[in-house]
């Protein structure tokens, strides 16, 4: 019944004490860590003051949709909100998931996967909605996850071949595998014509 090796209860108690002490102590920010945070901020600020390495480098918001990583120009993006269900729109094409009320404004939410014609089916109550800037239109696209804002040089893009009439919305492929999408193209769907009024 008892394990072969006896438990050193002293050592156990010591460890418990240490860990509970850690817990206790963790609630107070140690000055060391505060120092660390300040240093980091300063570095950031410094970096921010430096001129953009390439002025022409656009800021891209990367997100994931299924297994692929996509990107949209930050200038086209208005807001990013979590997707917590939307009111369905009867008679709407299947790309349209529904409408959502955002600060009193009714926005159309489309499934980016279906819009792109991807077979990716994701759970309808998850994900992030990327709401386009008002200049673009009052629509949002549901994606899985939003990652970060990055810079990408346009000359690094690998433009797709338009000979076969490929995906219209795809602008290109970044060196690290992000598929850059064209916002205007996305909004040029017939179902979104209604909302692509400027």
């Amino acid at each position, binding site marked *: 019944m008892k394990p072969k090796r006896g438990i050193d209860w002293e050592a156990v108690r010591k460890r418990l004490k240490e860990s509970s002490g850690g817990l206790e102590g963790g609630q107070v920010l140690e000055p060391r860590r505060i120092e660390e945070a300040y240093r980091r901020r300063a570095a950031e600020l410094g970096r921010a003051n430096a001129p953009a390495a390439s002025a022409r480098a656009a800021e891209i918001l990367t997100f994931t949709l299924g297994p692929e990583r996509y990107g949209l120009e930050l200038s086209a*993006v208005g807001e990013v909100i979590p997707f917590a269900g939307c009111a369905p729109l009867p008679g709407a094409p299947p790309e349209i998931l529904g409408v959502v009320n955002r600060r009193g404004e009714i926005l159309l939410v489309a499934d980016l996967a279906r819009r792109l014609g991807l077979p990716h089916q994701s759970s309808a109550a998850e994900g992030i909605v990327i709401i386009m800037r008002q200049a673009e239109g009052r629509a949002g696209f549901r994606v899985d996850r939003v990652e970060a804002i990055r810079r990408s040089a346009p000359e690094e893009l690998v433009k797709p071949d338009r000979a076969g009439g490929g995906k219209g919305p795809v602008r290109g492929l970044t060196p690290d595998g992000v598929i850059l999408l064209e916002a205007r193209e996305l909004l040029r769907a017939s179902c979104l014509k209604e909302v692509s009024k400027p």
Partner: protein
Amino acid sequence: MRISIKSKIILGFAVLAGLSFVMGSYGLLQMGRVNAFTTMISEQDLALMHLLAELNESRTQMSSLRHKTLSELLLWKAGATEKTHPLSQEQWRRTKEHVSSLLKNLESACSEFQSSAVNQERKAQFEKILQQSRQAEEPLNETAGQVEIYFSLMNRGDLKPMLAREESLLRAREAFNAKMGTIEGMIRENLGLGKAAASSVYRQSRLYILLVLAAILLLAAALSLLIQRSITVPLISFMQFVEGVGQGDLTRQIAALTDGDELGRMGQNLNGMVAGLKEVAVQARAATENLNSSAAEILASTTQQAASTGEQAASVQETTSTMEEVRQSGLQISERAKQLIAATEAASSASKSGLDMVQKTTSNMDAIREQAESVAENIVVLSEKTQAVGDIIATVNEIAERSHLLSLNAAIEASGAGEEGRRFSVVAGEIKNLADQAKEATLKVRSILGEIQKGINAAVMLTEEAVKRVETGRQQTEAADKSIRQMASTSQESISAFQQIAAASNQQQIGFEQVTKAMQNIRQATEQNAAGTRQLEKSAVNINALAQQLTKVVERYRV
């Protein structure tokens, strides 16, 4: 031929005797015949000779008388006598009559003898003599006539005519004498014939006798040969047979050469004897074979018996030693039983203390279980608290997400706001960093929580296991309790059983000693049995040898 040898021999002898008798009779007959023959011949001849002699005498007398007359005459003439004596003439006449009667006798004798002549020659001779004598009458009568004339002359005294007549007288007398001579000759011939006849008869008789003798001899020889054959041949075959039997050949049998007589019976008896011998030999052979096989069997069985007796003795020895071992082990058992009793009593007391220990252990187990259960409860509470922490972490995560989104939105706004937005983007970046850190932290916390949860689960499982083990332990303790009680009762039983064992072992010892004694007896008996069997074996060997000898003896006789 169903005549016995005795009869045969007797018959043979009888036949021989008969034959001899016949022979003798025949001989005698022949002798008689010859005798009669010769007698007759001699008689006849004698008679004839007698007659002849008489005739001759008479003739002579006649002549002499004639001469006498002559001389008388002469004398008278001479004057010597006065007168011729007429007596002489009478005498001469009488003599002539005598001769004539003699001739007649001769004739009758001849005719008589002719009828009883012995053979044809004699008969013819007699006939001849008869004829001659008949013929002689004439000369006689002539002579008588002449003589009468003579006499008459004489009487007249006419000498000269008388003398002249003499010549014719003489002639007549010569004729008569010739005839008489012939007759004599014939008679003498007849004598010769008679002799010849006699000798021929004798020779004939001799021949006949010889023939008969020869025939008799042949017959006798044949008969004796027959008898001999009928006796010797069987006897020879018997001899051969008996010789063969003597040499041991019992396969042959005498063929019935002569049955019914003694030899036949002897042959049958010999056959019977040989058959009996054969049977005896066959039986003896069979019996000998049986004996042989029986002797061999006896020998084998005695050998086996000897072996088995030896085995028996060995096994008795083994048994004795085993019994000794068993006895020893019985002693040991008894000792051990006593030891076991002591040990069991110790075990009994130990089991009592064991029971106490078990009781304590049970209560300890219960305590452990309670503690384990309380530990489990604590852990469950811990788990719930972890759950709460998890919820909080979820909230934190959500905050992080929101912050992330917020930062993103801030960045988006900042990018649209231009220069002022740049400073704002720093703040946004800061927020993003915070959000990222928060996310990282939540991730870590989540992983740690996950680990804690796992640990809690493990701990709960372990505690559950511990409780189960405690339960098991308790059950085992209960089982141990039961078993100890059982053991205690069993040891009580064992104690009593061991006591019984000790008692039984003691009895067993007594029994073993008795068995050992009995084994001793058996061993003695077995040794005696072995000795007896050895004797038996020897006897069986002897019997076997004897049987072998007997076989050899019996094999002498071939059947």
